[in-house]
């Protein structure tokens, strides 16, 4: 009888704690589902790949057009990422030139989900770039190959994956480690 009473007490406390944990913080239930495997992982990975594809295409388009911002709302990047790209284009234009980039190929090496809304993707990308005169669009430099490994930091915002930052590494170099703590700070 005494044992039964103790078990009932324990069970009541644990149940209340579970309800409070789920209700106490926004996103707690989604995180619980993520940790217990009840999460559409493949769907999210596909979404991340599509975001990276759209990001690369938009970057190439922005550089080629000299910074025409018509499609900026669909550009899956955080504000500071967009700012640096547009700043670069503007600085080149002030010098009378445009840097035109084309992505030749890319290979996704790894995608890691840290939470329902935080992920890292490591992609090998081959880019080629050339400078053109901003007025005549004549080539004014040789074609430069840019073989890089990009580590993208992604966050899910308003139902879509967005690139909040990225690191550029030389192809073949070992990437420094990143802790979950760093990723989850975004």
């Amino acid at each position, binding site marked *: 009888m005494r044992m039964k009473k103790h078990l009932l007490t324990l069970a009541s*406390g644990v149940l209340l*704690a579970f309800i409070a*944990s789920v209700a*106490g*913080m926004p996103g707690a239930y989604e*995180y619980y589902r993520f940790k217990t495997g009840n999460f559409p992982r493949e769907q999210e990975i596909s979404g991340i790949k599509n975001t990276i594809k759209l990001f690369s295409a938009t970057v190439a388009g922005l550089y080629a057009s000299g910074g025409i911002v018509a499609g900026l709302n669909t550009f899956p990047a955080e504000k500071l990422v967009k700012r640096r790209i547009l700043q670069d284009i503007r600085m080149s234009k002030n010098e009378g030139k445009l840097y035109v980039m084309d992505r030749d190929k890319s290979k996704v090496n790894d995608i890691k989900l840290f939470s329902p809304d935080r992920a890292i993707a490591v992609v090998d990308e081959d880019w080629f770039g050339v400078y053109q005169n901003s007025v005549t669009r004549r080539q004014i430099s040789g074609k430069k190959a840019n073989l890089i490994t*990009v580590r993208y930091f992604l966050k899910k915002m308003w139902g879509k994956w967005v690139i909040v930052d990225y690191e550029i590494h030389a192809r073949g170099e070992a990437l420094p480690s990143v802790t979950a703590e760093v990723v989850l700070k975004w």
Partner: protein
Amino acid sequence: MVKTPKMSWIPSLSAVSAVSACYITAYLLMQYSGLFRPSPSGLFRVLHQWPALSGVGVLFVVSLYVLIKILVKSDKIKAAEKGLSISNALLHMSILGLSAGIFLSALTRFEGTITLTEGQESWVSKEVIGPDAIYSRLFSGMPDGKLDIQQVDPVVSSDGRNLKRIFALTKFSSQSQPVGRQFRLDSRFPKYIDGWFYQVGESGGSVLFRLLGESGNILDEAYAVLKIFPSGAEDAIRVMQIPHTIYLRYYHEASAVPDKNGVPSDKKGPLFKVRVARNLDLLVNTFVSPDEFVQIDGFLISFRDIRNWVDIRIVRDPGIYLIVPALLGLIVSGGFLAFADRRKYVNEKRHSINDA
């Protein structure tokens, strides 16, 4: 006819206390399990959330009621049961003190982290600490102090790859005590100074970064606080004037670079590994010595004067002065009551065997 007693659906006070205690313990364990959030931000921050505070509130009310009942009936207690009654009272006083301490902490706790480089001094203020590094409650104060980091001594592991302990020789002054006092702050144990606890947190390398324009004019010059320890750890610098990202690693000796990969043979002494990207375009990937310039597009950058920086963690929580004695009281009274309960159980068992 024997009437069976009706079962009461109203829980007893002891049941309510027991469920509350189980609830708070289970809640804390769930928060630290990583099942509902990536990582909790600290025991007290979890305790200050409404789910924990509501359980603490129930314990407070029940303990207060029981304590008042014990005190009111104290003269009617038999001499043989006085010891048990005192332990019971101490138990409930401890729970009361613990609950009150947690509530006081929820109203007054302050945690702040200030980052300073060797040789740097600064008043501790909200502007210096920054909003992301402060946790303050409704009635938290601010420390009245100026910190002058005179020397940082990191103690590293034998292979030089891990920081074991950090000491920071710090001069401390305040508005009320302008004459500086020197303290050796430690990463292992906090130091109590004028009502506040100071402790060293993380440490790393601060580098004087210089950005020059085409004509050699200085566009920017500042110490960049970087996490470039141990050797080979990488951090990045960005400045608003240019769209470039400068990735930096520091090696105290050229021979410390793993595999000597890409290190020019003429390089000796301390080295920086510099990698510069302009958005998705990798421009530079090289090793430079301190003060050696690197050309990136129309700009020049250089690095020098590497110094240690430290995070100093500042905490004040008046609630702990209730919580700590209350926990001791809980252990003592809980132990005694458990022993008395066990003795009572053994005696009852012995009597029932004798009767049989």
